């Protein structure tokens, strides 16, 4: 069973090695010629005047929270989708109720304006 996953492990190692080799090659062949103007953060020709790590819009945070709920829902749906032919009507209706609850939550979010980006 697990030996099927071994090639993936090798692939991950090889992909990292490939990236590291390329970056090292670029580092070695690219030369280094530092300059305080060249190394300053790009800001369309202006001198950067403060750190870029400013507080950001709370809506990004909201999207992240909504994503967690819906991604969990997908995770629950995956096994159900595979077993739909064997679980009978009971399993089907159980998941329909669960989905129905989440749809009610979705409609509530929508009406509350959590999905607005104006």
């Amino acid at each position, binding site marked *: 069973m697990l030996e099927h996953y071994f090639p993936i492990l090798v692939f991950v190692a090889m992909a990292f090695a490939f990236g590291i080799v*390329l*970056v090292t090659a670029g580092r070695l062949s*690219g030369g280094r010629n530092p300059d305080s103007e060249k190394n300053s953060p790009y800001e369309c020709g202006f001198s950067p005047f403060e750190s870029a790590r400013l507080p950001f819009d709370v809506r990004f945070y909201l999207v*992240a929270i909504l994503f967690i709920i819906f991604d969990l829902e997908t995770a629950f749906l995956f096994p159900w989708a595979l077993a*739909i032919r064997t679980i009978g009507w009971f399993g*089907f209706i159980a998941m329909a109720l669960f989905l129905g609850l989440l749809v009610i939550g979705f409609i509530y979010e929508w009406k509350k304006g959590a999905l607005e980006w104006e």
Partner: protein
Amino acid sequence: MFDQLQTLIWIIIKITVIVLPLLILVAYVTYAERKVIGYIQVRVGPNRVGLKGLLQPFADLIKLVFKEIVVPSRSNPYLFIIAPILSLVPALIAWAVVPFSDGLVLSNINAGVLFLFAVSSLSVYGVLVAGWASNSKYAMFGALRSAAQTVSYEIAMGFSLVGVLMAAGSMNLSQIVAAQSGGIWQWYFLPLLPLFVVFWISGIAETNRAPFDLVEGESEIVAGFHVEYSGVGFALFFLAEYASMVLISVLLSLFFLGGWLSPFEGIPGIEKLFAWIPGFAWLFIKTAFFLFVYIWIRATFPRYRYDQLMRLGWKVLIPVTLVWIAVLGILIKCHCPPWFAI
């Protein structure tokens, strides 16, 4: 001990056989993009390096390798160097479970779709780390936008995958293709048409391609998260973006267009006529079609506004998939012919 070493070397050879053609394909997708967009805009595109510009991608690669890697003074240097590698690795390892023809796959795991879903979620880390480590305002905004966009469209993508799993009853990619055999009308793009469209659109959004390329919208935030990258760092982001484009095109072909199955299957006469074409050639033709449409869309449509992008993801694509999952469930439960008779 010797046996294990032999297996390991065999695996490494197989991975090389997958990755090398992929890299060459990626190189020529960039060439095709410049050429096709050129002709759409009544220009010729690159035509100087080699015959008709065919060596252009390699000239670009050599140029990028010999460019200096500029590490901005305010950045976090280690994260800054690691970020391109972090975005390249998921784009490459997803290919471990992609079958190119019947039985022609590196690791034929049963949780293939789950693996793909997990790996494609990882690609957002490269972008976020790059934006954070650069410590530049443009990079930061690009990374934030990218994270919110990827996360939003991943839900729609996940739901359309649920539809595919319901129809196929398996997470193994080879079995999903096998479940579509029996002729072109058995391919899932017909019974799952809304999910096919949603997967296609969210695939374009996931790879941050036009018209959803707000992440790198050059007219507002210049190049987005990779604005500070030069040389190989930039090349790796580029490689990762195009490798995931090819991946999305292959997945679309596997999930909805019957993968390596011939479109003439089950049609007497014509089926025999095209029987000599190997499976991976059909897969390649279908993939090339989706890649061409990627480029075509980029040349045709203007960029979305951010609120429009979010509205499309949350208020159009997710409700469509939810409704179609319910419809599909009822169709399967009622053994509705012609697709779900069993």
